[in-house]
Each structure stands twice: as C-alpha cells, then as structure tokens.
C-alpha cells in the first residue's frame, strides 16, 4: 500500500470537492433559474468533461498550463513554480474534470424548486441570502450532497488527466490510481490488489450513498 499516494488522492479529492461545492452552487443556481440566449451552449460546456476523453482534456490543459503558455508563464512569474507536474496543476485539472459531476445533481435539485416558493419567501420579507439558506438549501441539500460525493469519488479515481498533467512524482503528483498503474507495471500484483480493493470499496460506498440520498429525497 502506497500511503503517500493514498493521502495525496484524499487531499486532492477533498480540496476539489470543497472548491466545487461553491463553484457548483453558483453555476447550478444560475443555470436553474436564468433564461438567456446561448444557455444551451453553456450547459453543454459544463457537461463537456463527461464525454471528453481524459487524454484530450489533459492535452489541452497541458498546452494551456504549460511553461510556454501565457497563463503558465504568468503563474510561474507570480509563484516561482510551474503548474504542470505540480499539485496545483492537478487541482485545476480535477476541478474541470469533475465539474459536471458536482453541477448536474445540484442543477436538478435547484430546478425542482418551484419559482413561486422563492417568490413567496421574498414576499415574506426574506432577502436573497435568507431565501437561500432557509428555503433553497434545505430543499436542495440531497442534490448538493450528491454532487459533492460524486465530485469527491470521481476525483479520487481519475487517471488519464492526472497522468497527462501531473505525471508520476511520488508525494507530489502520484495519486492512488497512478500508483496502481505503477505497481502493475512493476509486477507488484499484491500492492495493486490492495489499492484496487480500497478504491473499489470506496467507490461502492459513495455510489450507494448517492442512491440512498436520492431515494430519501423522492
């Protein structure tokens, strides 16, 4: 068992989940209630990572975050560090890669709240923030939690994008799924088995949790 890889995966998944909670809430609420031209295009863009091959996403991110890109250059000037083959680069990639997994359940949950409930809250004197935490949040919480759990689980298991952006640097960018690949390459089947089992159990628990939440909500 590669414990540093395990903890790196957990750290990456947890931070991604927390950041995506806020980004997801913003995007989901925006898409659920606003009508504007080109809405379908934005929705497609948010959902794109669902169908895009991870290597394609990884390739574009590599070009965008690399030393020779303006963004990569700016980042290096500001921090003295590079984005590719670093934890920060992995985090940016994970945020994009897991975005639809966080947004979709949240979006469905917010869409299910009738507009009249929010209007009734406003007419009862609740401001937008009070309406959010007194009405929207309690009604959408299972969708929000589903989104967080899915984002966490999806980040934990990602492989292609991580390999493209982060490579395989122990303690820095080697996640559990990379470690499994690494162990198989080295004919260390026993370690690969243990780590695979950990991921399998974890994936089963999280997906059961999501189904349980959905059932309770309906």
């Amino acid at each position: 068992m590669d414990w540093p890889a395990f903890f790196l995966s957990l750290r990456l998944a947890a931070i991604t989940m927390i950041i995506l909670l806020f980004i997801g809430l913003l995007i989901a609420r925006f898409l659920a209630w606003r009508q504007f031209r080109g809405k379908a295009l934005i929705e497609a863009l948010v959902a794109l990572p669902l169908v895009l091959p991870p290597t394609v996403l990884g390739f574009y991110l590599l070009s965008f975050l690399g030393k020779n890109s303006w963004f990569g250059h700016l980042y290096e000037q500001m921090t003295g560090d590079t984005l590719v083959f670093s934890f920060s680069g992995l985090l940016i990639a994970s945020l994009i890669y897991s975005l639809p997994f966080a947004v979709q359940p949240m979006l469905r949950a917010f869409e299910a709240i009738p507009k009249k409930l929010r209007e009734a809250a406003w007419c009862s004197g609740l401001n937008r923030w009070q309406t959010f935490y007194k009405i929207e949040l309690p009604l959408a919480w299972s969708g929000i939690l589903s989104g967080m759990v899915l984002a966490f689980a999806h980040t934990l298991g990602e492989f292609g994008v991580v390999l493209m952006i982060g490579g395989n640097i122990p303690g820095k960018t080697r996640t559990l799924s990379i470690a499994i690949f690494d162990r198989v390459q080295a004919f260390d089947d026993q370690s690969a088995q243990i780590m695979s089992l950990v991921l399998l159990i974890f994936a089963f628990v999280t997906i059961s949790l999501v189904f349980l939440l959905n059932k309770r909500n309906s």
Partner: protein
Amino acid sequence: MKSLIVQLENRKGIPLDLNFECEAGKVLALVGPSGSGKSTILRSIAGLFKTERGFIKCHDQVWFKSDQRIFVAPQQRHVGIVFQNYALFPHLNVRKNIEIGMDATCVSSLEDLLSMVNLQGLENRMPSTLSGGQQQRVALARALAREPKVLLLDEPFSAVDQVTRRKLRLELLELIRKLNIPIILVTHDLDEAAMLGDRLCVLHNGTGLQTGTPDDVLRAPATAVVARLMDIRNLFEGELVDQDQEKNTSVILWEDIKFEAPFQRQIQKGSKINWSIPADKVLLHRRVNPSRGVRENPVSGQIIELVTISGISNVIIALDSDQRVKLHMDLPPHVVERNALKVGEKISVSLLKDALHLMDYSHSSSR
C-alpha cells in the same frame, strides 16, 4: 384617499394596459379568461414583475414609478400574497410557514393568526399532510403574518373541491370585513368575483375593459366583449330606430319586432347596436290571470331546454319569429312548477324595458 393606485403598461411579452384603484377595506376582483394577464398584474403589485411603464402607489408610499426609476423590492413592499396552489414551504411545518415572515415589529401573535383562519391545533403538521382547504388557510395566515399593506389573492379557491370552496368563500368574506387594507382578488370564476368583490375589473388581453360594481357590470356591460366575458347569455344585435329623451325611451328593432328600452344618449338614431338583458329580467306571462306587464316588450316561443341547477331553473326559449334565436330566462323552480312548464311548451314572456341595456355595435357579438 385611495389606498392602492395601479397603472401598468407593457408591450413586449405579456401585454398590459390598465389602471385601477382600490380603497382600504374593499375588494377589487380582476376577472377575465386565462391568459388575460391577471396573475401578472398581481405579480407587478408584489414587485415580482416589472412592467415597461407604470406607477404603483400604496398609501403614501410609491412602489413603482417607471419614469423616475423607482422600484421597491418585494421584501420592502409588505404585500401579503396567496399564490395559486399556495406555494407553502414543503419542508417547514405550519407554525414555521407562518412565522417565517414575522419579525419583532409584528403585533399579532401566531395564536391570533391561527384562530383567525381556524387552524388551531394544526401548527405542528407538515403541509403535505393537510387538506386543500387547510393549505389555503395556512397560505392566508402566512400572507397576513407581516401585517401587509395590501392583500393579493391569486385564484385562492382553484385547488379545492366545491364543498370546501363554498365554506372557504364564506370564511374569507368574514375575514375580509375585519381587514382594513385593499384586497385584490384574481379569479376566472364570475360567481366568486361577484360574491367577494366590491368592484370588478374586467380584463381582456391585458386591457382593463370595464371597472364597476358587480351589479353595474352585469346589468350594463360597456361593450359586447365585456358582456360576453361576463357570460351574459342574452346578447343580441339590433337597430336603434327611435329615441325620446322626455319619455326616457329608445325604440329598437330586433327580428322584425320593435322593443322599448331606456333612453341612451351616446348612441345615434339609426345605428346598429348590441343589446342585452339579464336572464332574470325576462318575465314569464302567467297562463291564468295574466298580469299588467304582459304588454311590455312581449315575445313568444317554445321551450327547448329546462334545467334546474342550485335553486335556479334555466329556461331556453326558441322564438316563434325565428327558431334560431334563443332567449335565456332564469326562474325560481316553484314558478316552473306552478305554471307546469315543460320542454316543448309554448310560452310568452316580457323583456322588462328598464332591464334592457344598449351598447355600441361591435362585430362577432351575435349568438
């Protein structure tokens, strides 16, 4: 002083062009078919919809003035609104649904509100466990919790069965008498509008066609369109052939018969008109001992339909002069019995002169 003044104008999307006023303690009923903009008007008053142009003032406070870019947010308007289907918060119990809008400045307590709408003992129930009538009461209590300056009711009885509806209407009537604020009721049910409204505003495609007491609007619709929207069954075309102001008489020609109607200043002699008569102002001639009124605008015909619904017998007569023309008459059931009226019987009736109402002619009004 008027308590609520509303002037709205909108061209894009939902067309609106109307203005009305409502005094404190009075009920103004907005009536019209679906799609006539009724709910949008309520939403505009509540601050949930902004029309292109308009002016809304409640007591001394201006809520909306488009030319000065004044728009007060719904939270600051203190409007009580009962939505169609109520929009209760499904995750909160009755108590919390009502209390959510209350703050330290509220004088009335939760207990007062609950007893006001007959909901005592249900404060810990969830909305999904309540009947339609109980949900409506919660919605009403929630609307009244903030001591609103205006009460807006959007089809408040549409989601309950008929028996409950009758009971709730009476309860609401009692409650309205205690409230000293303007109340705007949106409904497509004309009986409801006439029962609860001190005044009616008839809407069509977002335009206010006529505002008046239910009695005025029903007896003297401004146009054939209003008459049709108010479901006035006896609406016909004719010609104004003579006028005599001194005798307060107009003579109209209809189906080769000449009738007398009250004098009508606005309409020119010789012009085409629409005219109407309420179904309860068509007088049946008794077969034995005919009364003096038999000479007043008499017509005869054959009964082709006779139905008694909730204590009123609706009789439809096909006229002898033209079988295609049908006259509606409402009678108490005992009159039907005493005169042994049956489908197929020949009868004669009088159209009471003072009940005849003349209107400017408009197309597509014949029935």
